[in-house]
């Protein structure tokens, strides 16, 4: 069995075995063990991974459905970008499990099984090289997340869970139509119906341009909802606020990346021309999202909601980087995907720790907490500053690259995007620092808070690795970018020279013709 199948099967088997583990503690220990094994396997894969090699590595291909002219296959493989995201997934699983160890007490073994199912689905999404298989994994994630929010969530969990499910399903059904349509179009060009990503990449640019445009939008709709891009972001704050801590961490840390991953892999990879034509539309939405998300975040009184809206902003930067269609922008987007996973994941997790102690999400219920729990304050400050994009920490590198990409983008043709989105950086400082101030600094406003306990050893253990990576990426980003460099370069080379199609709208009409 190949490395990737192993990576998918480990959590899947773990989830199945959890059915027999009824004891809560045993279930947690078992799940932690399974996710550590998965993490170790992904590390082994990382060390075997050759960052300089072109194409997909660890490829596995099995015929799955072969009837008539329809061939679907189980086809998986990794390139640099997916490698980073798989590592992020397996790493965050371990961290999130340790970090939220005591936060759930009901039906723990069910929750753990769903988490492992989620992990298998996420790894599958990042490794699928067959669009059909990708779709299956993509949808597979819906079910466990739906239950995690719906069963273990807060008061309005049902509303949030259903909204999450229907929003995502709406997008993905259009993707399904696009996948079938693309396969049928490929049959016209290449002979047989196929959903093989490698084959499709080779022939998709031969399709009629209007078909490319339609397909581009069908895929973009699905991914934009997952990212989530303004104006289809409204499910996110609800889902984040209502989800249990570990759900929020996985949702922000990994799930949202599926959207931006899809935009890079499928929209840019399959339809470069259509991407160039429509880049400005998506970039505008991204910039609107950056500013809108930040403005809404400023006025939030609920910490979880604030972090959720900050996600809208941060994901906007990633989308902007992607649709700059430059090497810098794409590289920035990929590293920012990892960064956002680390910093927002850590923010959610740390707030979850505080929530366990105090059971309220209102900022006004805190104040001056830094005096009582100094360790908590320090770690929270690091996560917050990483999210703000302080130079020396990871967030800075990504945001800088995406902005630079947008600035010199050949398809966006304008520095306006960078200027406007830069205000997002400033606004991020406003809402995050202000939140930190109200939360942590100043005098202790609630006497009851004096009894808050500082971080436990277990909590510190879960946070230290995150901080290490934040600083590591901030100081030596090249080490991480090298992994995805080759695949991003190959992609950006294929995009090179692609220009938005010239429309006739602005052509100067010969006045003589009109006058006659």
């Amino acid at each position, binding site marked *: 069995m190949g490395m990737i199948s192993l990576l998918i099967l480990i959590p899947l088997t773990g989830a199945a075995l959890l059915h027999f583990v009824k004891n809560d503690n045993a279930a947690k220990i078992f799940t932690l063990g399974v996710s550590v094994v998965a993490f170790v396997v992904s590390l082994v894969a990382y060390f075997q991974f050759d960052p300089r090699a072109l194409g997909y590595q660890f490829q596995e291909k099995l015929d799955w459905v072969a009837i008539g002219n329809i061939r679907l296959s189980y086809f998986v493989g990794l390139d640099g970008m997916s490698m980073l995201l798989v590592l992020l997934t397996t790493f965050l699983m371990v961290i999130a499990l340790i970090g939220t160890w005591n936060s759930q007490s009901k039906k723990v073994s069910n929750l753990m099984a769903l988490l492992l199912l989620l992990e298998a689905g996420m790894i599958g999404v990042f490794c699928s090289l067959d669009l059909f298989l990708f779709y299956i994994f993509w949808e597979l994630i819906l079910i466990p997340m739906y239950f995690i929010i719906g069963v273990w969530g807060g008061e309005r969990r049902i509303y949030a*869970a259903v909204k999450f499910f229907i929003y995502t*399903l709406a997008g993905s059904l259009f993707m399904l*139509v696009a996948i079938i349509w693309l396969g*049928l179009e490929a049959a016209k060009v290449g002979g047989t119906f196929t959903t093989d990503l490698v084959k499709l990449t080779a022939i998709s640019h031969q399709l009629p341009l209007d078909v490319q445009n339609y397909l581009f939008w069908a895929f973009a709709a699905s991914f934009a909802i997952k990212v989530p891009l303004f104006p289809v972001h409204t499910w996110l704050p609800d889902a984040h606020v209502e989800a249990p801590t570990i759900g929020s961490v996985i949702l922000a840390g990994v799930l949202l990346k599926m959207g931006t991953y899809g935009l890079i892999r499928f929209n840019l990879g399959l339809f470069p021309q259509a991407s160039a034509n429509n880049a400005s539309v998506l970039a505008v939405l991204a910039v609107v999202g950056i500013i809108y998300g930040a403005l809404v975040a400023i006025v939030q009184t609920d910490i979880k909601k604030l972090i959720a809206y900050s996600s809208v902003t941060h994901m906007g930067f990633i989308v902007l980087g992607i649709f700059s269609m430059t090497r810098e922008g794409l590289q920035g987007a990929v590293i920012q995907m990892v960064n956002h996973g680390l910093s927002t994941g850590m923010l959610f997790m740390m707030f979850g720790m505080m929530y366990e102690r105090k059971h309220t999400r209102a900022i006004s219920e805190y104040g001056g907490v830094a005096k009582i729990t100094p360790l908590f304050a320090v770690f929270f400050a690091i996560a917050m500053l990483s999210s703000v994009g302080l130079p020396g920490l990871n967030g800075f590198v990504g945001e800088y690259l995406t902005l630079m990409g947008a600035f010199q983008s050949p398809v966006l043709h304008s520095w306006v995007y960078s200027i406007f989105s830069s205000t997002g950086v400033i606004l991020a400082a406003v809402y995050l620092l202000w939140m930190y101030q109200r939360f942590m600094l100043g005098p202790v406003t609630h006497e009851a808070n004096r009894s808050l306990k500082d971080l436990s050893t277990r909590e510190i253990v879960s946070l230290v690795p995150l901080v290490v990576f934040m600083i590591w990426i901030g100081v030596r980003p090249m080490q991480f970018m090298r992994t995805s460099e080759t695949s991003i370069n190959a992609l950006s080379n294929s995009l090179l020279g692609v220009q938005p199609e010239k429309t006739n709208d602005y052509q100067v009409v010969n006045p003589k013709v009109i006058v006659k």
Partner: protein
Amino acid sequence: MSYNDFISVLPLLVLTGTGFLVLLWDAFSKKPSRAPLTLTMLGGVGAIAAAAANLMNSSSVAFGGLFFSNSFTNFFTIIFSAAVILTSMLAERYLQGKEVITGEFSALLIFSAVGMVMLASGANLIVTFLGLETMSVSFYVLAGLYRTEARSNEASLKYFLLGAFATGFFLYGIALIYGCTGTMSLVDIRGTMAATGAQPRIASPDSTLLLLGSVLLIVGLAFKVAAFPFHQWAPDVYEGSPSIVSGFMSTAGKTAAFASFALIFGYALIPNGHPHGGMEKVQMILAILAALSMLYGNIVAIAQTKIKRMLAYSSVAHAGYLLLGVTALNANGQKGIAVYSAVYTLMQIGAFGVVSYLEREDGVGLELADYAGLSKRRPYLALLMSILMFSLAGIPPFAGFFGKYYLFMAALDAGMTWVVIVGVISSIIASFFYLRVIVQMYFTEPKHVTEPAKEGFSFPMIAVGLAVVALLVFGLQPSLLLQGIGYFFQ
């Protein structure tokens, strides 16, 4: 008539024989027993075996062109027989304590299946008509099986009166088609349509007659599959009938009508998926019916608070999905109909099985609110039900998804993109009410605190379990299903 003729229709003979045997047994036995049901299951198994043996038969015609016997008909025969078996398994307990004679029930079940097989194998419009009536008459009685309950009586009467109308339409359609083409044999009609194209046997005014005839046939069949706007009977009938009967009617009955749809339109009137001679209009009519059924069924299902009515309206929508396959009129469409029928039969019988199980065991289960907190009371039943709901909503990796995939593919291939878009939108709507059942079962607290019930292994549970396992297997390995279908008339 030759030995081969009988071999070709062996599944039909097995089913008919079983039906008579059950009736005889019932006439001679003194006290009620479970024997008729057991016999029915055995008959179903026998029919499956016979059909499976015939499955790889390349197209053959029996009794001088009256019956088809090929992979298509045999595949559908297997679906009907499986539905009979599952329904009898569910009936085992469900009928206990009700004033229902199991022998009567079993015989009617089998005879309706005989009608279905005739529908799926009729190579002559008269055989199709006979099949339609054999099936329908059995259904009319089955719907009124609870003879002491007013609701059941009402369902039966309503079904019968409206069904009689549909029969009239269908028969009139046959007459017109005969008038135009001079034949009732599907093979000959196909030949005429393929050879002369725009000109049927008699000159030009007949393309109008042909169109009219086709429309009347569509009306007759659309009534049987409960497609919008011919669905009005369905919610009342499904609600009033015993749950297991509703499950059987809304799946196997529908599937049979769809098999006939595929034969009459896909094979005979519009050969090779190239409509001509006014048939483009028929294709458009079918597409519009499909679109309206999907939207209407799903939108109205949202408003339902009774689970059987919800399933009834959603079955209108599923008829719409299947009509997509008819509309496409290509090989993928035929495959799509076959795959989706099989899968839909499993899902819907499973769902009605859960409903009937709860109805029987807990005395509740007809209202959506009865499902509140079911995951605490009956975790396994809740799990089975949620898989059925996810599958009905078309979420992978369950088989419902593959069915939809095929139908969408067929319609896209035929260039009917707009209907697919309607299908997608209605699927999103549908997910809402399927999820609601899961929300009830898992996310809401039960109204009364009840002890977790013991979930023993009983026939009904096994039947639902079998359906769910099949959905999982076909979902993960759709080739199994697809290989069974083989190639239809190629």
